[in-house]
């Protein structure tokens, strides 16, 4: 019997009383590469932020290896969307990667030789060793994405959440990320990847989570990534749910 790495139980998230995720419920076995797929506005980023406790839940709960997230932070690695930070910020690439070790260090302790060694190893893993001393604006988009990946690697996590790591990267970076994902899986890690490119889902992932405000389907790519399920995920907006959301936000009963 294999371990359950992540359990999401009846998760609902609302922005300004308007639900954006409804009753999402799934559990994931350790060691899987999971693609999170769905149209724009389907709540993919929201799902990850809700799991990480960055967005308040309207209802439901999340367990990492059977414990609440707050107690299991050390097991989590996070790659936010590249656009979420100011790349003009005065830090070097190595500084950014070192941030991955901050969670273990705790208050006021500075990263020491051990942390720097970890950072250098992670930089080498994503092929950025030669760029370690550069200010982060002086990287290409793909290199910036790899710097974020290296930071997550430096977290030395068990479960990784990556928000669109393949968005707007060059072919070399795409290949490097893919290789990294596979080596993480070989090391027994569980990785969730928000992904946009339907063409590559079969090739990249073991499991796929189809999302459009609710969980459309979740399971192995072979069983779940079907024409029918995709139609249900992408084919038209979910009019009934839309109306319900609209009604709730307007405080009117649905007609």
């Amino acid at each position: 019997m294999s371990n359950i790495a992540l359990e999401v139980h009846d998760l609902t998230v609302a922005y300004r009383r308007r639900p954006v995720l409804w009753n999402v419920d799934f559990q994931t076995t350790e060691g899987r590469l999971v693609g999170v797929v769905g149209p724009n506005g389907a709540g993919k980023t929201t799902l990850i932020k809700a799991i990480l406790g960055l967005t308040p839940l309207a209802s439901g709960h999340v367990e990492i290896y059977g414990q609440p997230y707050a107690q299991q932070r050390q097991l989590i690695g996070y790659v936010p969307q590249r656009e979420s930070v100011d790349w003009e910020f005065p830090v070097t690439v190595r500084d950014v990667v070192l941030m991955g070790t901050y969670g273990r260090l705790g208050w006021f302790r500075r990263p020491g030789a051990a942390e720097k060694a970890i950072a250098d190893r992670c930089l080498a893993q994503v092929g950025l060793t030669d760029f370690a001393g550069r200010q982060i604006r002086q990287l290409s988009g793909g290199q910036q994405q790899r710097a974020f990946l290296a930071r997550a690697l430096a977290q030395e996590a068990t479960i990784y959440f990556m928000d669109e790591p393949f968005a707007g990267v060059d072919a070399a970076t795409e290949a490097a990320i893919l290789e990294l994902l596979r080596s993480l899986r070989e090391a027994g890690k569980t990785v969730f990847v928000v992904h946009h490119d339907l063409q590559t889902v079969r090739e990249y992932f073991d499991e796929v989570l189809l999302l459009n405000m609710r969980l459309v389907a979740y399971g192995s790519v072979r069983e779940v990534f079907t024409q029918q399920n995709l139609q249900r995920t992408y084919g038209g907006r979910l009019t009934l749910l839309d109306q319900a959301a609209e009604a709730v936000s307007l405080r009117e009963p649905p007609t």
Partner: protein
Amino acid sequence: MTMYMIGPSLFAISIAGKVALGAGLLGAAAGVIGSFAVLKRRSLVGDMIAHASLPGVCLAFLIAGSRDSDALAIGALLAGMLGVGCVAVITRWTRTKDDAAVSLVLSVFFGAGVVILTYLQNHGTGGQAGLDSYLFGEIASLQSRDVRRLAIVLGLVLIGVTLAFKELRLATFDEEFARSQGWPTLAIDFAVLGAIALVTVVGLPLCGVVLVAAMLIYPCAAARCWSNKLAVVLVIAAVIGALAASGGVLLASFPAIGGPIGEWSAWLVGSTPPPGPMIVLTGAVLFGLSLCFAPEQGLLAKLIRDANLRHIIGRDHLLRSLYELTEPQLAARPGVTLSQLADDFRGRSAQLRRLLAEIENEKWIERSGDSVRFTSAGLNRATQVVRAHRIWELYLVHYVDIPADHVDGGADDLEHLLPPELVTRLETELATAGRLPPNLKSIHPL
């Protein structure tokens, strides 16, 4: 008679020194803590706190009945924090955006402050207490006790930032990642805001409600030109903040010191200019100098880099012209007349003369009368240039799908920056794809 003149002037100088010290302490503290607001794109927040503190100052005066600086500072702090709270409430509960809420609170609080100030002045006591000096600041506000207070504030800011440098850097750069690691970013945010409010409030009497926020902003904006490392940016911001503040109050106190500079500045800005504007203008000068003269990011450095690149491009063009004019009999290194060269080289004749002199100096060409020919070193050099140009052209045609007749212009920009290893790699790639024409294989440096 002379003694009589020097006496008060010396006295004024010693006061000016103390004022400059106090202002420097304030400037350094504001530069360091303001950097975190600027880097988080929250420059307006300090301005909001400063403006919002005016009604607090006035009400504290009304309640305390005197111009006790502690009471006024507490009033300012409370009103400033109330302003921060109002912004939080407005953005949380209405659809007003962050910047609109900040501007709104700033102007409403300031408006209320001015109304109360006018009331106080019309009822006698306020005018005598000189509360209106809170608008643009006043040098006399810096007494020994205030200098000590400023030193304590600077000490607190430096200790806090040094201790929590790692946490501040992370929370300022990537708040969500910090939260995913469990850092209490909201508390860190409030600590920074609190420190900004504290620095603002102790700076108010000197720099004034209207301009004190600038002391939070320009040091970081200027320091950012000099370094890409946060620790260095903070140190430079502290230095620039201190220099601007000390310099500003000195300029403002020159009229009181006397002497030729004093007379000149008295003539320029009146008998006693308020220190706030002088500090801000001094800061603006330092910011302007940083923009122009910073080593890597300064405008001057950029101009020099561009000029260097244009120079290299011009020289490469000349070498290529000479190479292509003599291409059929390269090995013999025949001569080319200057007029032939001028026809082929697309540039001004002055530029051509300058470049010719330069490459002759490099011993790349020999001149005899009207004719020019390569030396063997020059031919070698020109071969490298032409090879890079042609390989890059081929690469663009075959791999980037640029139509052949559009390539020349585009190739010109990048080929001058291609490192030799990359040219060799491109060549290998083209060769393995069978796309290297025979005439290119032959042009290798000798």
